[in-house]
């Protein structure tokens, strides 16, 4: 495994922010956990624990998924949100949305096939496995799938594979308190709720954006 989700520094992401989480200095939602109801606190704080070893992905699939999610979610250094492990447990426990497109296999199978195809593309194009490729090559291989739009990627509709990857990846990543710190979202709000409603209003535990003009939509330098 090139990137074991269950051991090493990857698993130590807990309290504190992510690299890049500099817009809301000092904001750490977990400091408010004592105000959360116990059922919610149990579910959310569980995400900070060291992830379990994979039960769904094979070791090779896990390595490819790690590399894919690192690119999709720009996780370049530790500590990382353990996205692969979170996706793995959803698939192992069949916590999928249930539905599938008629021209796609069910989610678990779609994951296995799409990871295998990424590896296949890497071998064809660069003569090595996907996770053995340098990052710029990995990004090119991923970009190729996105660029296909509604065309097929091998035997699968590319747009639906893209949607599968981003849906699972974003659901895992943005369920993690470290990601909430980065975006200024305080997480669970029961039983306390909010009192300061309205534009520009802050609760005592919220933090203003320190770079409000840093508008990714306007500067075009994403």
């Amino acid at each position, binding site marked *: 495994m090139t990137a074991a989700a269950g051991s090493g520094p990857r698993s130590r992401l807990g309290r504190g922010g992510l690299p890049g989480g500099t817009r809301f200095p000092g904001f750490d939602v977990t400091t408010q956990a004592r105000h959360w109801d116990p059922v919610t606190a149990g579910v959310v704080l569980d995400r900070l624990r060291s992830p379990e070893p994979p039960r769904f992905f094979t070791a090779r699939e896990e390595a490819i998924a790690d590399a894919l999610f690192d690119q999709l979610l720009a996780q370049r250094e530790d500590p990382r949100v353990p996205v692969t492990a979170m996706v793995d447990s959803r698939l192992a426990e069949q916590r999928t949305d*249930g539905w599938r497109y008629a021209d796609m296999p069910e989610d678990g199978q779609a994951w296995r096939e799409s990871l295998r195809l990424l590896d296949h593309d890497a071998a064809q194009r660069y003569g090595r496995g996907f996770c053995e490729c340098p990052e710029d090559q990995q990004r090119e291989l991923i970009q190729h799938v996105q660029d296909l739009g509604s065309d097929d990627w091998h035997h699968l509709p590319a747009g639906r594979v893209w949607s599968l990857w981003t849906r699972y990846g974003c659901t895992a990543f943005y369920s993690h308190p470290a990601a*909430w710190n980065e*975006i200024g979202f305080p997480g669970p709000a029961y039983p306390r709720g909010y009192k300061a409603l309205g534009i*520009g*209003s802050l609760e005592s535990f919220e933090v203003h954006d320190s770079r409000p*003009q840093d508008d990714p939509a*306007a500067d075009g330098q*994403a």
Partner: protein
Amino acid sequence: MNAVRRRNASAWLLTDGGRRVNPRLRAGMRRFSDTDEIDLVIVGCGAGGSTLLQRTARAGWRVAALDAGPFWDPEADWVSDEAGSHHLYWTDPRVITGDDPVPLGSNNSGRGVGGSMIHYAGYTPRFHPSDFHTRSADGVGADWPIEYADLRDYYRAIEQELPVAGQHWPWGDPHGYPHSPHPVGGNGEVFLRGATRLGITARVGPVAIANGRFGSRPHCIYRGFCLQGCKVNAKASPLITHVPDALQHGAEVRADCMVTGIEIDERSGRATGVRYVHRGRERLQRARMVAVAGYSIETPRLLLNSACRRFPDGLCNEFDLVGRYVMVQGAPQTAGRFDEEVRMYKAPPPEVSSEQFYETDPAKPYRRGFSIQTVSPLPITWAEHVAAQGHWGTDLRRYMSDYVHWCCLGALCEFLPLPDNRVTLAEEKDHFGMPVAQFSYSQCDNDRALMRAAQGVMEEILKAAGADEVMTIGRYAHLVGGARMGTGPSDGVVDSSCRTFAVPNLLITDGSVLPTQGSANPALTIMAIAARAADLLIAGARSGNSQGVGVAG
């Protein structure tokens, strides 16, 4: 005593303090035996099923409602968290297809007592009078066998029972609401500011969240997690608005029971009960009448799976109408970026709406219209919106870090009922051995034109409010149709009282009976139709026209 309490005491039957359920009420619930021939068995305990259950229990009927999911305890079972709320949805296998397949699961399905109203936003607008005759007035859609006037009193009654908060409503049949409007958060402020600058009328509400205490239900705490199940008991769902009163009047709610077939007596052609699976065991509940309220996918699926010698193509399907004319609303979401901090996650997502574009405008190239409402996606749903623009990697993270600056509006476009937008049975079987539903959807030109027009108006509102950038995601919301109401068996599965044409003692009392959908969220209309069906059923039993129901009211 409060007038609502006299006819539906649900809010007063909940306990106060930390508990959100009344343990005495649930423990003391009447329990029928499978071999009892009860007066009515209801399949599905959501908007339609629970309303029918409460009304018939009040009338003294021996009635039970079966639901495939759990009997929720909001305190123990729900969390104030997006990813942790996955169990609120219907996630059994389904296949989607067509030119514009509609993803199911999270956004348009429910599971458990309370149905999808457990996780709906809480918007409860009425349909407009024009919705009931779009075929004659606009040349599209269908005419209902009833008019708005047939539902008006039921709308008012349900609005009081939920109860609904909002400003006076100037559209459709103008009306007021029992509770005054809630204060709005940043998202609502932006909508109101943009609309005012453009001369568009927007109003606060209508939202099924009590403004103030209501019985033992506490005040809303504006925490923004309406779509994850209201742990507060402030937002209305049948779990707290109709089920408690039903239990108090002797109804049974049987949770974790998946109904797999409706039993038919081949000789008489009448329904005799339902087959269901509970804890792995197949059982059969006998009843004099059966009502199906499983919503637009599961209701047609159950009818089609209940084929028998007398109904070889599926129950009530002699005219090939079961599963057809299923509708979703086109629900594009447009977000705008502001230098100010909007923080749309604070306050309930349902805040402000406009129905100014609801009706057919003869100057436009399309028929019918759309409504616009605040929606306030939490981070995971917001990431889907951002990722849909094609952003990934560093680009995605940067956009996401800008979350507090965005305001988000959603439209509901009236997609037209089309025969080929339908539920059929797939080859694939689920773990009960029952064929899974296949749902095919393709938009027509009018649908697509509405999506574009709605996006245009939302962009204008956001820009007028000061947004420097906007971005839109195309999506769908809600489900209705699939067993529509008609004037006769060749154009409908049920008649105007929700009774099936084919089986005299079988009713359908959910969103699948709607022939058209307007641009309104369907929950209130589904409850109003079920309440009306219950009244007619009870009155029929009293006058002797019981079609086999031998109970007096």
